[in-house]
């Protein structure tokens, strides 16, 4: 296995599965069943293959591993380069873990166009994994933006009543951000003549250019994360997307933004990052507090969780730009944790939605009477979302706050208040849905979790507790890469010589952008 192109395999096995589903013919019933089976087995195979990455990954080094390279556009030195380091590897695992879960979760709830649905998910998996593995700017961009196509279709074809509006909003918002990043990529490419990401990580770009490039990349990542005030596509997309679509959206797609900050913004534009840190902090604080308050007022469960996602991702961006070991580790853990927890919460909403076909909070009460197992699972993830010690959410938020505290106590204080609000809206949600007296007539016959749902939740619970009780097995993976990132960042700031204030905003903005 040592010489096999492991990353390419993991990336493209889902695509092979999709091609296989494409040629399935037969009666509608058989076709749907076969498509589900093929998709499940393909995604499980991918997951097993990705475990080889987990076990084969050498801890304690910041170097890229499993590196592959093949010519693509030799004229410009653009090549198909893949590789993972401590920052990207966990996300690959997250993607491969969530995809089979999504396919299981849509087993019965998706009844129309099953074949196309499964193809869309497998193609999406390929694009997500490829995005995290890419070590070339252009390869990265192709995967990054390609994700839009299957996600657009998943929301639009299998979504709820306002699916068209949501799908368009999702598509156009994210596209507008990423085209600016494309220009940024082209500019980097012309400035340095390379598109090789590992080489670019050690290349220093001129300070004035960094400012513009940072903004171009920020446009893309901020929409993806999403940061306030460009988060408005997210609640719409989540509410209308099918359950599994929300799971992938919250679980992996939002992480593409956070990953982008860690992979590009911080290491490639350190001066600009330093310059814009106050901006990011401000937006993050607004995200944490404001969207938490908004979440408190929601009447739709999915919308509530969507707003909570924005708040949690606010922690991620704040932690990332604290540029401390704890802060970035916390941001990473928070992203992974949120990937699992919010995915699980959307699945939890999906469970009752499949039975009652409503996501309105007021539509439910006293579910614990009929669904004790469901109440237990819900509680675990609710508490993980709140950040109870012993769950993954606590580790992430705690580390972020520790990191922020070293940089700015005020920011740490405001972010911490978000945790309190988080507890408020989640507990309030839980009380309304699970506790109380069951008064609605049709809830009296509602059934508890069936085995398929237990299979879906079991691995997620395991991961949440594992990450909460023994986070070291995750932190070990990323520590070396993160400390290397911070070292390079500080070296670059020191090399610029004059400390952070020197790259003054006014000075760097005078560079003309129009024409020559």
């Amino acid at each position, binding site marked *: 296995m040592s010489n096999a192109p492991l990353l390419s395999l993991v990336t493209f096995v889902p695509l092979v599965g999709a091609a296989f589903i494409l040629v399935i013919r037969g009666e509608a019933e058989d076709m749907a069943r076969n498509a589900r089976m093929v998709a499940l087995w393909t995604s499980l195979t991918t997951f097993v293959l990705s475990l080889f990455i987990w076990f084969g990954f050498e801890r304690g080094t910041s170097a890229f591993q499993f590196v592959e390279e093949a*010519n*693509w*556009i*030799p*004229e410009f030195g653009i090549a198909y380069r893949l590789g993972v380091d401590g920052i990207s590897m966990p996300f690959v695992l997250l993607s491969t873990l969530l995809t089979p879960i999504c396919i299981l979760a849509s087993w019965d709830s998706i009844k129309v166009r099953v074949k*196309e649905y499964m193809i869309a998910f497998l193609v999406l998996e390929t694009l997500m994994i490829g995005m995290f593995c890419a070590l070339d700017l*252009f390869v990265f*961009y*192709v*995967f990054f*933006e*390609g994700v*839009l*196509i299957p996600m*657009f*279709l998943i929301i*639009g*074809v299998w979504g709820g009543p306002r*699916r*068209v509006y949501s*799908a*368009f909003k999702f*598509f*156009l918002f994210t*596209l*507008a951000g990423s*085209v*600016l990043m*494309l*220009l940024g990529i*082209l*500019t980097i*490419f*012309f400035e340095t003549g390379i598109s090789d990401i590992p080489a670019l990580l050690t290349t220093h770009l001129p300070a004035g250019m960094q400012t513009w490039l940072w903004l171009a990349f920020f446009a893309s990542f901020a929409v993806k994360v999403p940061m306030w005030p460009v988060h408005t596509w997210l609640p719409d997309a989540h509410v209308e997307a099918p359950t599994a679509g929300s799971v992938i959206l919250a679980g992996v797609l939002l992480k593409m933004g956070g990953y982008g900050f860690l992979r590009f913004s911080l290491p490639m534009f350190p001066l600009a990052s330093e310059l814009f840190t106050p901006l990011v902090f401000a937006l993050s604080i607004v995200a944490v507090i404001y969207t938490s308050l908004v979440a408190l007022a929601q009447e739709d469960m999915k919308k509530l969780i969507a707003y909570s996602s924005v708040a949690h991702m606010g922690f991620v961006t704040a932690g990332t730009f604290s540029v401390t070991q704890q802060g970035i580790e916390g941001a990473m853990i928070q992203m992974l944790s949120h990937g699992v927890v919010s995915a699980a919460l959307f699945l939890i909403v999906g469970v009752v939605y499949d039975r009652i076909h409503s996501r309105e909070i007021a539509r439910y009460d006293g579910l614990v009477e009929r669904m004790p197992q469901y109440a237990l699972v819900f509680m675990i993830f609710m508490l993980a979302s709140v950040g109870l010690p012993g769950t993954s959410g606590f580790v992430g938020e705690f580390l972020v706050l520790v990191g922020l505290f070293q940089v700015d106590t005020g920011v740490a204080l405001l972010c911490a208040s978000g945790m309190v609000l988080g507890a408020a809206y989640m507990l309030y949600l839980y009380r309304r849905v699970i506790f109380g007296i069951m008064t609605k007539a049709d809830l009296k016959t509602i059934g508890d979790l069936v085995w398929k749902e237990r299979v879906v939740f079991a691995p997620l619970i395991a991961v949440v507790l594992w990450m909460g009780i023994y986070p070291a097995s995750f932190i070990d993976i990323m520590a070396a890469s993160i400390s290397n990132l911070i070292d390079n960042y500080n070296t670059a700031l020191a090399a610029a010589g004059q400390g952070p204030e020197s790259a003054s905003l006014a000075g760097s903005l005078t560079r003309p*952008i*129009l*024409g*020559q």
Partner: protein
Amino acid sequence: MIIADLLASLPELWLACAGMALLMVGVFLRRNTATTVMILSVVAVAVALAVLWVLSPEPDYAYGGLFVNDEFTFFMKSLVLIGALLTIVMSIGYAQREAMDRFEFPVLMVFATLGMLMMISANDLISLYLGLELQSLSLYVMAAFRKDTLRSSEAGLKYFVLGALSSGMLLYGSSLIYGFAGTTNFTELGQILSPDAFDGERVSLGVIFGIVFVIAGLAFKVSAVPFHMWTPDVYEGSPTAVTAFFATAPKVAAMSLTVWVLMGPFSELVGEWQQIVVFISIASMLLGAFAAINQTNIKRLMAYSSIGHVGYMMVGLAAGNEAGIQGIIVYLSIYLVMNVGTFACILSMRRSEGMVEEIEDLKGLSKTNPCMAAALLIFMFSMAGIPPFAGFFGKLYVFLAAIQAELYGLAIIGVLSSVVAAFYYIRIVKLMYFDEPSESFERPLGREMTAILVATAVFVVGFFVIVSPIADSAGIAAAAMIEQ
């Protein structure tokens, strides 16, 4: 000497002779004339392509400098011939169904194609004009080919009147250039207008005026804003098979001519014409993006889409460097294939009562004809420039050139307008995939349509694999064009 000249223009000679022979066949054959001539004209164009590839004429001038061959013209002629070939094949079924099965139709296409080859190889304002008029006159007639319908006649007349006006501007510009520079030959013009010949002084105003008029004439032919007014009406009014032809081969020829004129004899005056091209480019991109949003007719939509695409190609021209030319060539190749594929879909939009061309008619296509819907989905995302499809790489190459030339403002406007344009492309996807089906189209599509659809879709999807060889040959062509 004369043999060398003839050899250099063998594909053109062949097409000229074949066109005239086909005319005779049409006149003297008694039965099935239309179909026979149609098939023979496909053969004629295919043979011209084969001659071009087998002979691959040496880079040289011919006919005393009126005619030129190099890697650039070779590439462009290949594109034109491929585009013409595919669109003639696509129109066979259409002509039979829509009572257009007259033998003049394919003959006109052959002559138009001949005109395009002449345009590409023109190295003199005179030969340029001859090629251009041969092409245009054939196209005017083709636009009005269904003379019994009002729309088609109107389209033909409109195209003719405005086309004649633009030809007039082109001629006026040419005469000004000749008057002030003393020659019509591109090579000599290049020498006369080089900075050495001026000792750093500005070139005379008459030449600049001439260039502006020539650009106006050429902008009309490529349907760039503000000379685009004819495009939506002509696209909508012409028979669909003719629209398919308009959108492909003539675009390539006109674009290549524009590049050749501006980057050839006037390449030293880049400072004089660059701002015009930047304006044309921005205006075309924006108009193509915004005006298409409200269209309900798919042919009109494609007209605005083509205006937008011309705007993107102009970005490469505005950059005025070798990378820009390469970008245009790559873009043109992709554009040609995408458009052929899209028009294959549009030509398949027929019901029992005849052709339909409203965008709404595509509703629910993914249920009634999943394969055609999938192909159209691929083309739409590709036109919107979403990776990994081919259209993205076209945009990538032109913006690469713009960034290299430090035209940041142009690039930013360009990518943002591509987001606006994405809206109407994905709207078609929405109709096909998100909406409930209306009445389904007639099936089957026909063997040749299916083959073209599959081939173009595979090209668009698999382009990222072959991006390097295509871009390399485009690079060679661009280098050859810059050197001359």
